């Protein structure tokens, strides 16, 4: 089990949290009690409440957006090009240094 450091931005606040490889980014955010990530469906990709803006870290990589995720994101409020469902991103070493911004509409 290894951890990778990720940056979380909520409005003007910025903090760093450790995410454990193998869990989902959503679980890491929930585990760190980040408000605005409700994830009311517990990662079943049916609610869209774990939406966040995710910018790659130094690796420049993020897992690709799947078809179901893209459909859910079409229905998100304030969608941006960096929009992701954090339940669909598994934590791996390539995520080190990513920036996760919580949408204002979810805070």
């Amino acid at each position, binding site marked *: 089990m290894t951890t990778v450091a990720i940056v979380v931005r909520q409005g003007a606040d910025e903090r760093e949290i450790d995410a454990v490889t193998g869990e989902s980014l959503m679980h890491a955010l929930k585990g760190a009690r980040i*408000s605005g990530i409700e994830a009311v469906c517990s990662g*079943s990709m049916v609610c869209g409440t774990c939406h966040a803006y995710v910018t790659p870290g130094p690796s420049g990589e993020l897992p690709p957006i799947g078809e179901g995720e893209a459909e859910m994101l079409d229905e998100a*409020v304030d969608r941006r090009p960096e929009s992701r469902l954090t339940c669909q991103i598994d934590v791996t070493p390539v995520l080190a240094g990513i920036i996760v911004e919580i949408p204002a509409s979810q805070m």
Partner: protein
Amino acid sequence: MATAPDMTVPRGDHAPVFDFDIYADPRIGEDIQGDYAHVLADVPPVFWTPANGGHWIVTGFEEIVEVVTNPQDFSAREMQIPRVPDPPQFIPLSLDPPDNIPYRRILMPMFSPKAVRAMDDDLRRWANELLDEVTVGKNQCDFVDAVASRFSVTIFMRLMGMPVDRLREFREIADEHFNARTPEDFGRVVPRILGIVDELIALRRTQPGEDIISKLIAADFDETRKLTHEEVQRICFLLFLGGMDTVTNVSGFAFRNLAQDPELQRELAENPARIPQFVDESLRMFGVISTPRLVVREAERFGVTFRPGEMVLCVLALAGRDARRNPDPARFDLDRSDSAHLTFSSGPHLCLGHILARAELRVLTEEWLRRVPRFEIASDQSCRFRLGTVNALLSLPLIWEGGKGA
């Protein structure tokens, strides 16, 4: 085919047993969620009740999450306690993943954050129309009959393209469904609901509109085909039951609590910006659904053995009152941070209307308190209620000052 649960197996092994009748337990009164919490306070979060043919009851937050996110062991394909032959089938609720997913993809844009945001002005206009009628020059009403049911059910009926003048008739049929226990009961009520649904589908096939039924008829399933009549029918069956009785019930309990708390009324009337917290806290404390699952594979969990054919009932209202998740859970606290509930369930069958429900509760509370900042329960009357897998407050007589009398 469904197999009957094997009641010759002694329950037990290590299962805690507690006799609890979800339909008529005499210890449960109109404060349904509070009474549930009180009666089950010393009972483990997973136990077996011999009542209603015998079934499991799950009340803990984490335990419920595990059940509703584990369709391999706990299937949604049957929802009746006790089990009945040929149980009613709902789409997508009765389908385990991945079969439910294409249907949710069709329905999701109609209930998404974006869709609900677009309804905001309509919700407020409808709330204003209704509340003017109920409150101007008046000083009392039955909140469930005059406000909660009419507001949320007419919103639903408008979305569905249903004739709003049949509201009471439709509500009564939904109530009959939630009171059904036996195959004979279901045999009477299900065809009536499907008949109404068929009528509406037939209408929209010839006169399409902007309503949900028209959208279902036009929808592409997995981009390969249209939905069959039966699929549209089974989706509308579920929406009918969901739309007739759920937000109504939560609003009833939320306002029953608000009516008994003058301090909370003052706080919200002075600071309407806190109403979203009131909605969240009300949802945490006043869930109304207990969601059943059928054990389809032997599973060792929580120190007990679930056997195929047994029913498991997750009491969603108690998840928000789990002290392991929400400290001091019986206290209504607007300042609660990091609170959690499962009032909309979780997992692949998370309530499709969860965003709409929150918006309805928020708008209704805002508009009500603008007109009636101070109110109470009429002391000479008690509230009627219904117990089961969908708990309901059937009446809530409210009185207030400032009107000219009814």
